[in-house]
């Protein structure tokens, strides 16, 4: 009776658990559903443990059972202490070390399994044996060691590698996933092999994306390889895609558009006006900040925006625009550079010093659509791009604006009205 219950329960629980993991990761990819995703991932682990409990795994003795509870208790207490007590910022303190614990656990299991070549006390018909089993266990140990190394690196690494820490943590998670997957294959646990595989590639993909946001490759970021040309003058520049801009614009109540020469080059005025209309329909206040020297000639922006049928009432001179920017949720800089350079006010040695400034940095969040970090007409660096609230969106202004517009439609298809 028990045996048949277990035979039925294990596959069902394994499938439910795997679905929780996949759905959980998927939900974590959207701001709105991320909290639910995290809960699903927690439930996934819980269901996997229930599956183990009903699987009829036979412990050696009562002492064995007690030892399991000692381990679980110690881990839960430690986890609570770290989870509630440590800093949330992932590059700091004990957080990165936590990224190694999954790998350490898998490696410890692999070593224990390696010491004796007897069967697992685990009713599995999938378990590897002989050479393949040894190979999988060996790989698990190597991956676990890599996770430990990457985690410690992120935890105590030199400050110069600050931007590399998130990538190192993601790589540590990936290594832990590989270790778990190998243990799962060796012991013949479909759920451990599946979730391990999921984490292995999810962590790697995350590392690639984090590095790409810095314009680098993952291993270069972690181990401090050569920086790509063009961004040498800049540090701590954050880049993002149209999706993130759409997400933030979705909830913004006041948006200031700051067009520049780049908008004229890309002929992006229609795309910009369309996006502004969409935001206005959602109830946001949208104004355009017009800098006297934006574009080739004074009035260049006015002409283009008039062509795109932007109401003249929405266009503002730079001084009035700065008042609006002070309580704006988003400043969207479209192909402008020197006109939004804070050096015009605070660096008397700069070539642009003394020019009027459209102070984009006053807004809560700044998005800068630009093809690259190359300097503008004045040939100087722009400190706006390094502000913590600034996100660069690299690309052609027109294409990026169109992408933000379509992303906005996808995110809330029916709530176009305010």
């Amino acid at each position: 009776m028990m045996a048949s219950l277990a035979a039925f329960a294990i596959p069902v629980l394994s499938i439910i658990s795997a679905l929780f993991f996949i759905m959980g990761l998927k939900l974590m990819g959207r701001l709105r559903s991320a909290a639910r995703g995290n809960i699903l991932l927690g439930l996934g682990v819980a269901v996997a443990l229930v599956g183990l409990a009903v699987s009829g795994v036979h412990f050696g003795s009562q002492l064995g059972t007690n030892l399991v509870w000692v381990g679980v208790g110690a881990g839960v207490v430690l986890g609570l202490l770290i989870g509630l007590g440590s800093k949330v910022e992932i590059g700091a303190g004990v957080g990165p070390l936590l990224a190694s614990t999954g790998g350490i656990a898998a490696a410890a299991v692999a070593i224990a399994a390696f010491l004796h070549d007897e069967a697992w006390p685990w009713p599995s018909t999938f378990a590897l044996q002989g050479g393949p089993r040894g190979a999988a266990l060996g790989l698990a140990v190597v991956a676990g060691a890599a996770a430990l190394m990457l985690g410690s690196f992120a935890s105590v690494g030199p400050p110069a590698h600050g931007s590399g820490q998130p990538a190192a943590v993601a790589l540590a998670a990936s290594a832990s996933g590989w270790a778990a997957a190998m243990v799962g294959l060796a012991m013949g646990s479909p759920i451990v092999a599946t979730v391990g595989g999921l984490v292995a590639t999810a962590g790697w993909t995350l590392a690639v994306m984090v590095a790409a946001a810095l314009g680098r490759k993952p291993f270069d970021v972690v181990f401090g390889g050569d920086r790509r040309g063009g961004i040498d003058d800049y540090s701590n520049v954050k880049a993002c895609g149209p999706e993130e801009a759409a997400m933030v614009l979705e909830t913004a109540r006041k948006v200031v558009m700051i067009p520049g020469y780049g908008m004229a080059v890309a002929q992006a005025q229609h795309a910009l006006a369309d996006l502004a209309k969409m935001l206005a329909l959602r109830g946001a206040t949208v104004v355009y900040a017009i800098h006297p020297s934006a574009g080739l000639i004074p009035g260049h922006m006015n002409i283009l925006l008039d062509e795109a049928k932007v109401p003249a009432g929405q266009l503002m001179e730079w001084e009035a625009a700065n008042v609006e920017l002070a309580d704006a949720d988003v400043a969207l800089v479209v192909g402008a550079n020197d006109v939004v350079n804070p050096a015009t006010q605070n660096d008397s040695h700069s070539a642009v010093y003394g020019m009027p400034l459209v102070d984009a940095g006053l807004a809560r969040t700044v998005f800068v659509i630009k093809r690259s970090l190359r300097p503008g007409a004045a040939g100087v660096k722009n400190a706006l791009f390094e502000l913590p609230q600034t996100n660069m969106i690299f690309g052609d202004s027109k294409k990026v604006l169109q992408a933000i517009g379509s992303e906005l439609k996808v995110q809330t298809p029916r709530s176009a009205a305010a």
Partner: protein
Amino acid sequence: MDTGFILWTVMMFLLAAFVGHHVIHGVPTLLHTPLMSATNAISAISVVGAIVVAGSHYESVRTVLGVTAVAAAMCNVVGGFLITERMLKMFKGGGPGPKKGGR
């Protein structure tokens, strides 16, 4: 050992690896850090194997390894879950960037 069954497990692992890449690909920058924290938390799925080793009570070396693994993995799951949740709570107020004066 049944070669057919092993093939299934390996296939499942490969499919899962594929799914892992696709589920994460294209996620906005804003959510990279909580996702990192969450993927790291579930990498402790090897707790299943750890419990089997710890409970089997073979001999001291393996038992110590097993109990250590159970503790490390549980710590990873619980700590990672809580940190992820706290991170996501920070986002509740709106988009990225320092808050100015609150909402």
